[in-house]
C-alpha cells in the first residue's frame, strides 16, 4: 500500500437523542462506533452498507464537516480536530465532498459559472479573466461545454448537474475527495459516464477518494480497498478482489447474495436475511449482526467480535470468519 493520506483511529460519533418535557438527552445514536481505516495516496476506499449504517457520517467526519466525539482523523500528519484558524484554512481546499442529491447541493439561483467559481473566490485563488479561464477549463474537463456556463441547475439533466458538482469539488485542486453516493440517483447509462469521469480525474490529478455507495458492483469498479459497514462498525475490510471473491463476514456474504446480478448464467448462494437493520440507538449486544445472522451461536450475543486479520490484509469482525475462507459466493453455471 502507498503512504496513507487519511488515517482514522477509533472514530466514534454519538448523536444525542433528546426526549421528555425538558428535552434532556435520554440516549445516544451511535452513528459511527469505533472505526479504524486508512486510505493510501491515490487510492480509493469504498464504503458499503445499508441506509443508517453510518457510512455518510463517516464521510463527513473524514472532511471535518463533523468532528468525531472520540478518536481522531489524521490528514497526512495533521490531526484534523486540532486544525483550526490558519492551518485549517490551508487544509480545507485540499479536501472536498460530492453529495448524492445534486438537486439540493446546487443553489438554484446560481449559474454553473458562479457555482464553479465560488470555491475559487473563497480561497482567493483567482480573479477576473484568470478566474473565468479556470472555470471554463474545469467545466470542459468534466465533460460539459461552454454553453452550460450560463445555465441554471433546473436547466440541466441529472447527469449534467452531477458534473457541475464534480467540477466545483475539483475547483480548489483538492487531494482528497469524499464521494457520497455520487451516482445513486442516476440512470445506468449516465452512471457509466460519471464513473468513467471520476476514474479519469483520479488518474489525471492523482486524487484520493473515499467512495460511499450501497451498490456493491459500483464500489467494486471504483475501489482499491473496500470496507463493509453495519450499524456504525466496519465488519469487514480488505482489498477489493478478495472481499468479493471470498467474503469472510456473514453480512458481506448476505449483501453480495442480495444484489441482483444482470447475468442469468451466474448462480449464487441463496441467503436471504430476515428482519430489518436494527436501530443504532440501542444496537443488539455482542455481535450487532447476530439477530439476523444465519450462523449465529451463543457466543455471538455475548461477546463482541473484534475486527481481526484472518488472511493477509483481509480483516473481518466475526467469531467464525475462518469457516468462509474457501467458500466463494458465486458459482458460474452453464446449465439451466
Amino acid at each position, binding site marked *: 500500500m502507498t503512504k496513507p493520506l487519511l488515517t482514522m483511529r477509533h472514530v466514534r460519533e454519538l448523536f444525542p437523542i433528546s426526549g421528555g418535557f425538558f428535552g434532556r438527552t435520554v440516549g445516544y445514536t451511535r452513528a459511527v462506533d469505533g472505526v479504524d481505516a486508512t486510505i493510501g495516496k491515490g487510492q480509493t476506499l469504498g464504503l458499503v452498507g*445499508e*441506509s443508517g449504517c453510518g457510512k455518510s457520517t463517516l464521510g463527513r467526519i473524514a472532511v471535518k464537516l463533523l468532528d468525531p466525539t472520540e478518536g481522531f482523523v489524521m490528514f497526512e500528519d495533521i490531526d484534523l480536530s486540532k486544525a483550526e484558524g490558519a492551518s485549517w484554512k490551508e487544509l480545507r481546499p485540499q479536501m472536498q465532498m460530492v453529495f448524492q442529491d445534486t438537486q439540493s447541493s446546487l443553489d438554484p439561483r446560481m449559474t454553473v459559472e458562479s457555482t464553479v467559481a465560488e470555491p475559487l473566490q473563497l480561497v482567493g485563488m483567482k480573479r477576473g479573466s484568470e478566474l473565468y479561464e479556470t472555470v471554463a477549463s474545469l467545466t470542459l474537463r468534466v465533460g460539459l461545454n461552454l454553453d452550460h456556463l450560463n445555465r441554471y441547475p433546473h436547466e440541466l*439533466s*441529472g*447527469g449534467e448537474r452531477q458534473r457541475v458538482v464534480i467540477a466545483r469539488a475539483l475547483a480548489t485542486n483538492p487531494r482528497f475527495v469524499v464521494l457520497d453516493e455520487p451516482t445513486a440517483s442516476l*440512470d*445506468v*447509462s*449516465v*452512471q*457509466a*459516464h460519471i*464513473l*468513467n469521469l471520476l*476514474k479519469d480525474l483520479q488518474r489525471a490529478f492523482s486524487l484520493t477518494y473515499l467512495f460511499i455507495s*450501497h*451498490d*456493491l*458492483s*459500483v464500489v*467494486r*469498479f*471504483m475501489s482499491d480497498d473496500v470496507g463493509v459497514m453495519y450499524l456504525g462498525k466496519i465488519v469487514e475490510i480488505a482489498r*477489493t478482489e478478495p472481499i*468479493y471473491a471470498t467474503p469472510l463476514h456473514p453480512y458481506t456474504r*448476505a*449483501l*453480495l*447474495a*442480495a*444484489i*441482483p*446480478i*444482470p*447475468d*442469468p*448464467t*451466474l448462480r449464487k448462494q441463496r441467503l*436471504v*436475511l*430476515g428482519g*430489518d*437493520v436494527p436501530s443504532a440507538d440501542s444496537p443488539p449486544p455482542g455481535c450487532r449482526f447476530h439477530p439476523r445472522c444465519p450462523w449465529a451461536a451463543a457466543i455471538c450475543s455475548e461477546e463482541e467480535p473484534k475486527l481481526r486479520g484472518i488472511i493477509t490484509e483481509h480483516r473481518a469482525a466475526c467469531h467464525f470468519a475462518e469457516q468462509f475462507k474457501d467458500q466463494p459466493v*458465486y458459482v458460474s453455471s452453464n446449465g*439451466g
Partner: protein
Amino acid sequence: MRGSMSRDAPVATAHAGEATGSGRGQSLLSVENLRTHFFTYQGVVQALNGVSFDIRGNEAVGLVGETGCGKSLTALSVMRLVEEPGRILDGEVWFEGKDLLQLTEAEMRRIRGNRIAMIFQDPSTYLNPVFTIGNQIGEVISLHQRLRGKELNRRVVDTLHMVRMPDPERVARQYPHQLSGGMRQRCLIAMAVACNPKLIIADEPTTALDVTVQAAILLLLGELRQETGGALLLITHNLGIVAEICDRVIVMYSGDVVEASPTRELFVSPAHPYTNLLLDAVPKLHQDPSERLPSIPGSVPNLIHPPSACRFHPRCPHAREVCATEKPLLQAVSDGHMAACHLWYPPRRGSWEAA
C-alpha cells in the same frame, strides 16, 4: 425454457393484426399500439408512441428502461390512471376478453385492485398515515367483496400472514409510521394480493429499500406468484432484478418497445443495439475494474421533438440512413424474441455485431 417458449410462441407484433387477434385467447393482458401523450404548454409530449406487448397467464414479465422511457406510464395507461394533461389517444388493452379502454369508469373501478392490482415504488406515500394498516387493507377487500366485521378482520390478518408479516394481528392495528420500510412494502403487497388478482403490476417495488430487504421482497413476490398462479408485470430500471425473477423482458426506449425476449436470451444475445449498450453500461461483479465502463453516447431525447423514425438512431453506433426515415417495427428475431431494429431485416443473428 426455450422449449416452452417456442410451443406457444408469443404473437404481439405491432404490424401483424391477424397474429395479435389470435393471441388474445392465450394471453392474459394484451396491449396493442398504446399511445399516450401529454398536452403541455411547451407542446405535445409523445410519451407512449404505440406500445404493444402481451403477458400470459402466470408469467413474470419485466418492463425495463431508463427514466422517462414510459415504463411507468404504460402501467398507468393500462390501469387508466393517466392524469391531465395526459391522454390515451389510441390503442387497445385487452384483459380477460375486455378492452379496458372501452369500459366505463364504474366498470374499470371493479377491475382495479380486484383483477389487476398495482404496487407502487414508495410505500410511505401510498399508505395513509392516519389509518391503521388493517383499516387500509380492509378497505380494498370490502370494496370488492362483501365482507364485514370479524370476517373482514380475519381476511386482513390472513392477507398479512400471506405476505410473511411477523405478528400480523398486531401490525393490523398499527399505523404506517410504526413500521419499517420493508414492512410497509409488505403492507402494500398485501393490499395488492388481498383480492387475489390475476395480474399484479409492481412499479419499482424495491427501489426505496435496502438490498437485503429488497432480496426478501423479491423472494416474496416470486413465492406469491407461485402460490396464487397470477401474472406479474415488474417495472424496474434494475436489470439485475429482471434477470433474477422474470421469465420474459420488455425493453422500452423513449416511448417505444424496442425489444421483447425470454430473459436468458435477452442477456445472452440482446438483439437491439440499445439493449446491448444498456447491459454493457452496468458495472459487473466479474468485470476488470481497470477497463472503462462502456457508455451510451448522447442523452435521452426530448419527447416533445423526438428523433424521427427510430428514436434511438442519433445515439446508435449502427445507425444507417433508413433509421432516420422509417420507423422499425417489432419483428421476430427468433422464437419469442422480438426487436424493433432495421438491422434485423432480413433477420440475421449478429448482423449488427459484425457491422
